[in-house]
């Protein structure tokens, strides 16, 4: 039977994905261009037994989202620009205390208010390093409204499986565009719930990882009384001043993501097999890149596209395959050069020319701009 097809806005697709994943709590604050997520979930969550709250600011919205998760609900918050900056303090708390949740960042320009209603891709490094301190990070980015729905489900799955906040790094173009979306039916997409303890509450250690590097997480109120703190903590959750322990625990947290690269990192490779020129593009910019690749191929130019759907962890392994094979990489991005730094790091000087197309004028990078760059040669 044919699947139901809906004409959805990107931000609507986030909501559909969240509900599909079993999200029943949203703590938010209005900000353009993410506000539709809050508006839609305010209406939809009660229908599935969930609750929505509009907090007094972005800081409290992040706090409430983490609190909802600690009490056992899959929790979401969405924001943009300055809102994302404000979330950073409690996002760091979520990393250190290993609380699963999903944060949608509908990217606009920056810094500060700048061009609030237009698109941007300037928060790539913020998604990795925005809060203080070292920590693992997972950020997903994607190029269609269909993917926006599916990647929201995947974001919840990664958050729940690995016990960490996951950032859905989308942008204003994807957030506000409308496309036909084939609606997944129950069972079509995998839905993962966090591991919960089954031991005697007396024996529960909230930060004692199992073989997969992740400890089971008890809901507050479920009979497992335990302590959560943003201080360095022992396996029982209580604070410790042991610096060696702090270092070992942070490395363990980083490893729980790095060791699962193959499961977490997802890319699309288009026409890369024989490519001499590679475009590395993500999000809405990758849509233009795809068009440019098609047009260049029609002219006989050997160009391919590597499009990360997971930007953090960075797709090192996927990119490394092309060391010594491509002689140019073009990195178009709506910022002044963030992703290109990572491409340069991974390729370690093996590519004769890595060139950026960098634009922060609140306009999308067009296929023609990318095609011209391809043809411009070196």
């Amino acid at each position, binding site marked *: 039977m044919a699947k139901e097809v809906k004409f959805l806005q990107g931000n609507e697709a986030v909501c559909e994905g969240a509900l599909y994943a079993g999200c029943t*709590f949203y703590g938010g604050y209005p900000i353009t261009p993410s506000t539709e997520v809050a508006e839609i979930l305010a209406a939809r969550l009660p229908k599935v037994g969930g609750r929505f709250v509009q907090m007094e600011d972005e800081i409290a919205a992040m706090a409430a989202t983490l609190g909802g998760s600690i*009490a056992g609900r899959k929790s979401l918050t969405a924001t943009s620009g300055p809102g994302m900056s404000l979330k950073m303090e*409690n996002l760091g708390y979520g990393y250190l205390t290993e609380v699963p949740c999903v944060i949608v960042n509908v990217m606009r320009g920056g810094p500060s208010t700048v061009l609030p209603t237009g698109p941007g891709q300037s928060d790539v490094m913020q998604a990795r390093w925005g809060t203080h301190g070292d920590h693992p990070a997972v950020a997903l980015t994607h190029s269609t409204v269909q993917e926006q729905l599916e990647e929201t489900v995947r974001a919840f799955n990664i958050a729940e499986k690995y016990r960490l906040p996951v950032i859905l790094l989308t942008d204003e173009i994807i957030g506000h565009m409308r496309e036909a979306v084939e609606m997944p039916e129950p069972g079509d997409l995998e839905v993962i719930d966090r591991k919960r303890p089954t031991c005697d509450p007396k024996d529960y250690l909230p930060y004692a990882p199992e073989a997969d590097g992740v400890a089971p997480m008890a809901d507050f*109120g479920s009979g497992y*009384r335990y302590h959560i703190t943003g201080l360095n903590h022992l396996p029982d959750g209580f604070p410790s001043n042991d610096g060696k322990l702090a270092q070992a625990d942070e490395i363990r947290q980083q490893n729980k993501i790095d060791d699962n690269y193959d499961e977490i990192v997802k890319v699309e490779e288009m026409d890369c097999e024989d490519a001499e020129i590679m475009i590395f593009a993500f999000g809405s910019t990758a849509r233009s890149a795809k068009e440019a690749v098609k047009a260049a191929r029609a002219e006989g130019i050997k160009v391919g596209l590597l499009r990360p759907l997971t930007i953090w962890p960075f797709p090192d392994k996927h990119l490394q395959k092309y060391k010594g094979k491509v002689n140019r990489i073009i990195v178009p991005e709506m910022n002044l050069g963030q992703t290109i730094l990572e491409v340069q790091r991974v390729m370690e000087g093996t590519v004769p020319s890595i060139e950026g197309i960098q634009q922060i004028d609140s306009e999308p990078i067009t296929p023609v701009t990318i095609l011209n760059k391809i043809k411009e040669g070196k």
Partner: protein
Amino acid sequence: MAYNYAAYLREGKIPHIWCPGCGYGIIMKSMIRAIDGLGWSKDELVMTSGIGCASRLPGYIDANTLHTTHGRSLGFATGVKMANPKLNVIALGGDGDMTAIGGNHFIHACRRNINITCFVFNNHIYGMTGGQYSPTTPKAARATTAPYGNSDNQFDIAKLAIGAGASFVGRSTTYHAVPMEKLMKQAMEHKGFSVVEIIAGCPTGYGRKNKLASPSAMIEWQKANSVNKAQWDKMTAEEQAAEAATGKFPIGVLHQEERPEFIEAYDANVGLS
């Protein structure tokens, strides 16, 4: 027979971090007796806190305890409570945590009237960082960041809470350990957002610089300056203002009203109840 606190304490976590002479142990004991008096299940008790000396308290209590970021505990508490309204939630913190960095969250929790009990430990100073002036440091008092005396104005936390819409507001001091317990119990029983401000001494961070170096001097100061609400109400507004100017303050239940509780109202509105 002496009261046995052990049933509510994580004894392995004692001794606590508080300095000799700190008033927070008195508050913790009153709070335990109040919780015990209500017969709240430890499994259904959630205690959240921010950052600072007061905020270390939940680590000592055998409950679901959440030591969060500076000033943000009410945001976390709101999420926990909305995710599972059956849980009894206490959010606590110091004067700096709740009314400076957490001031926005504090006033909005009051306005929202969510069924959370908030204990504000007011020792008039930032203790953990070593004695900087806070929003409740008296004018002209000395602090490490007010070496010439404090130029800044004071928050009256109870008045702030009443003004912002908390439906139960009380104040006590560490001198009044037994009335404090009763007041805390009333606050926890109240449906809606309840605030109890507890005046406490910080001999280390505040007293030493302000001629109140001994713990007993600080407790004597509390005794001498607190006025029972019934007595306070007998004064005219002018008399009250004159008393307040000398550092006097009313204690007891300062405000109580019945207002729709936030989650109940939300659930009724959206068809969840």
